[in-house]
């Protein structure tokens, strides 16, 4: 059964109670052991692989040496025949046939190693994939466990601190109200700011004698005098 299915079954049946663990500590330990075993297998497989690859290379070198020996001796046979020494040619040919037997043997050894390498590489890949899969499953189990413990701690904290959990709507209302308050405060501050800057500008203008002049006694007197004349 897949680990997700196991978690689902556990959640459906009774494990809804807070703090109740979906997978017991024992299950997690077994899992961790399986991962460790797989990792040991992987190490061994990799070690074997390097060994076999070294042997394959040796065999391959032997094959090449034998092949070039054969070619060389074939040359000697030709030379012996050129010299008309039939007996020597036959002797060399016997040597060649011996070399060919060796070559066939060595080729066989090489092929066996080559097959072995393919198999081991395959095994390494499979094991790596399996470890990844185990680790993913273990992470799911541990996360489920951790989340359950965390929510238990959170609920305990809520009840022990006596802080009442607000309903979602109440929380939303409060947050929205606070946001509106902040917004209003900001708007008010901006308004105040702009009023202040207006005022300081008009103060400067007044000081410079620009803009609307304020009336004072002497200006009133001047106006009346002007009317009378």
């Amino acid at each position: 059964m897949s680990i997700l299915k196991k978690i689902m079954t556990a959640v459906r049946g009774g494990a809804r109670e807070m703090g109740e663990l979906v997978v017991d500590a024992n299950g997690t330990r077994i899992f961790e052991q399986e991962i460790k075993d797989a990792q040991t297998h992987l190490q061994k497989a990799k070690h074997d692989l390097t060994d076999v690859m070294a042997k394959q290379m040796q065999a391959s070198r032997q094959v090449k040496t034998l092949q070039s020996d054969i070619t060389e001796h074939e040359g000697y046979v030709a030379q012996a025949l050129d010299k008309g020494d039939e007996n020597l040619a036959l002797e060399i040919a016997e040597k060649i046939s011996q070399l060919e037997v060796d070559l066939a043997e060595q080729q066989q050894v090489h092929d066996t190693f080559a097959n072995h390498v393919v198999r081991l590489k395959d095994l390494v890949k499979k094991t790596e994939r399996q470890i990844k899969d185990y680790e993913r499953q273990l992470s799911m189990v541990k996360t489920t466990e951790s989340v359950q413990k965390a929510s238990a701690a959170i609920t305990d904290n809520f009840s022990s601190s006596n802080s009442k959990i607000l309903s979602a709507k109440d929380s939303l209302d409060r947050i929205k109200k606070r946001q509106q308050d902040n917004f209003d405060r900001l708007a008010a501050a901006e308004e105040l700011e702009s009023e202040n800057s207006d005022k300081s500008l008009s103060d400067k203008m007044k000081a410079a004698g620009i803009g609307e002049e304020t009336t004072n006694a002497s200006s009133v007197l001047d106006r009346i005098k002007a009317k009378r004349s």
Partner: protein
Amino acid sequence: MNTRDLALRISDFSSFEGYQFDCQPIPGDTEVLQITLTDYEELPAFVSVTDTQILCITYLFTQDEVRNGSKAEMMEEMLELNIPMPLSSFAKLADRYVIFGALAINSSIEDICHEIITLTENAVESIDALEEFLI
């Protein structure tokens, strides 16, 4: 990084993306950090650290708060909203609907802070969006 380191490092930020954080460790079997943003105290984010990930969870509402008979429709809505909602997803823990975000264990402190801010903002948005289904 464990929750204690996290709390210390988050407290070092006087402000991040315009928000201030308040960190409080919650005692229990597993270490949980309660992180609230100023002005969003009602919707704290709970952060816990496992071997592989950092989980940030915000509680939305209990199933008792869901209007009778509208549960299925609300869940459909949640599934539809899951992808458009940045970084967070809807989920359920026992009798509570939550939103959560999961981060890789080697995430930077800035990533974590950004996650918590996004999570909180998403929580407000989603309650607002799902309000019609709530009592």
